[in-house]
């Protein structure tokens, strides 16, 4: 099984790190990176509208940065909820932030759509925990 990852972060370096960590975990993956929440929403809308297209492209996991200009992670979730259909239902969203501020953590926990909060940087260990949700054993 191939896992589809969607990475959303305005910082190119963080995107690079996340991508590398996923690649290093040696699972079969397909990674799409977006530097703004806006473009990610557009992409998801496109998938939604093209009903004919197979579901292969629909992401399984979204790593979402909180602090981004124009559209923040929380705003993205609001937009995402608007287009949440059957197809999108299974998507697991993790929010990523360098903040350990308790109010941020609390806020993320209140978001039903979001299933986890990851303190940056993404590491081998955290990606392992995420993957265990999918019962995927790493081919390490």
């Amino acid at each position, binding site marked *: 099984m191939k896992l589809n990852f969607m990475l959303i972060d*305005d*910082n190119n*370096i*963080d995107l*690079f*790190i*996340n991508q*590398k*960590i996923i690649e*290093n975990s040696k699972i079969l993956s397909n990674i799409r990176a977006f*530097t*703004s929440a806006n473009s990610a929403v557009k992409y998801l809308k496109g998938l939604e509208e093209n009903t004919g297209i197979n579901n292969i492209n629909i992401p399984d996991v979204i790593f979402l940065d909180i*602090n981004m*200009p*124009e559209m923040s992670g929380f705003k993205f979730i609001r937009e995402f909820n608007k287009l949440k259909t059957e197809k999108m239902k299974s998507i697991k969203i993790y929010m990523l*932030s*360098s*903040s*350990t*501020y308790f109010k941020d953590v609390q806020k993320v926990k209140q978001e039903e759509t979001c299933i986890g909060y990851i*303190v*940056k*940087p*993404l*590491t*081998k260990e955290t990606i392992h925990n995420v993957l265990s949700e999918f019962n995927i054993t790493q081919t390490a």
Partner: protein
Amino acid sequence: MEAIKYNLPSRLNESVLDVIVENSMVSIVDSFGRIEYVNESFCSLLESNASELLGETLELLKSPRHIELVYKNLWKSIKSRQKWNGILSTKTSSGKSITLDTIIVPIKTDNYWSYVIKYKDITLHYNENVKLLERDNKSQTFLENMPLHIFSITKYGKILDANKKICNIEIVDVIGTYVYDHINPSCYEVLKNNIDIVFKDKIPKQFEFFDFDENERKTFYSSIISPVFNNLGVVVTATICFHEITDYKGLSEDLQYKEAKYRSIYKSLNVGINVVADDKGKIREWNKGAKLAFGYSETEILGRPITVLTSKKYREPNIKELIIAIRKIKENQDADIIEIQCLRKNGEEFPVEFTLNRLRVNGETMYCALMIDITKRKSLEIKLNQKRKDLEQFLYRSAHDLRAPFSSAQGLVNLLKEENNKEQAEVIIEMLSTTINTGKALSNNLSEASMISAKNYEDTYINFHKTTNDVIENLSDHENFKFIDFKIDIDVQQPFKSKPELINSIFQNLIENAVKYSKEPSENHTPIIDIAVKYRNEELMIVISDNGIGIKKQCIKNIFDLYYKSCDKDVSGSGLGLYIVKSIVESFDGNIKVNSDFNNGACFKIHLPQLK
């Protein structure tokens, strides 16, 4: 007229002249005043006869050299051949004084001037008048010397007559005013009640009251009002008399002085608002502070309920608070300091801190409300709260944003540890260096932002040429720099004093933005940055404009916000630059405005007043 004149000589014959001469007193004197002719009735008035008088000087006219003004005028007039009319006095042969209304007419006969004089005996009238005047004067002095003020008034208190002037106001000016105009509002009630009784019950009324003079000295008066009836027995006016009896009140000088002193202090207090109300809630005392704060004069407000002073919107809760305060006082507890919203005469509202005390004066319960206008404090509190929120936000965002590059660096280090490929490792190291630079730039910006509020900068004259050139030179390493055409126009004729570090920061951030957001040069595009500084009328204007990529309409309102970052992902920034600029401009009491068309450049305009 012509016809009558024409007929006149024929009628004015000897007999007519006789009648005239017989029935009036006439004499003729020559130009030296010697008698040429006297008629019978004039002779008898002077108790003399014609033979005695003819040829003599007429005593009545004195001589032309006489010094009294009336005679000077007389002789001056008749010598210039003009008619003279006036009152003259003389004595008869027996020494009786007589007063004559005299008309002297110069006439010319045969080139020779003489004066015809006609007399009218007004001795009786004159003497009566003199007596009358004397009497009048006497009664006037009598009235004035009375130790009382007496007025004739209508039932509304309008003054119809007065015995003497009051407080240097002449009687004529006193008439027509109201008694209430001349006493303190605190006495209105007692006076009005008594006047009403007199007009209603038609009996004289005596009462005492006190007032305060211009030195705030307590002055006691005894007053009598008595009705004045017309023929039908209706009270038309009243006579009111005021007698100052302070000295008989047995108050010691010391006590009076003390009371005057406290009253002066109370009245002149203009910091605190001081209002005394009776147990019915009616205002009884009103100080200067209250007048300044509420805009009502003493006359307007005394006797009105204290609730008119509170805001209509908050009247109910205000009254509740008041009732609680009064209850507490009645239970002998100290009333709390409460905050209430007050209403000015002009409708403005303002917050006060309010304390209530109970006083007992002559068995009467009074409440003294002491208020302090806390408008300034309130607005400061609000500002402080805003500042505190800003600061919290600033700290939170700073802590967060400072963490970000460290997290990235940590992630990169993690990757580096696992990386065996040397080329890949070098890519990661390059990223690490970028990340560290971002962190460094951010911490630099942070220290810059914290500088704004620091006060320990000296004001010096700003050299705008140097500032601009230094900033531009610092930016020369930027990749866009070499394409940009800088146009600098500095027109500062008079010295402008300010804090150079902060002014520098404004230029640095704005010019750096203009460089960062410039468009790539092409055949028909040269990136230009205009920097204009002008100093006019004590105001500095800085305009920095470019023809770069501009700002999207929906972003313009946010660009000065803390940690607001451009929507354009290609340009890196800390989100602090414009926040810093705005904070500096505001700390100088200036303003900043931005205009931009997306894709057509941006223009920042700053106005700074000269530091005072």
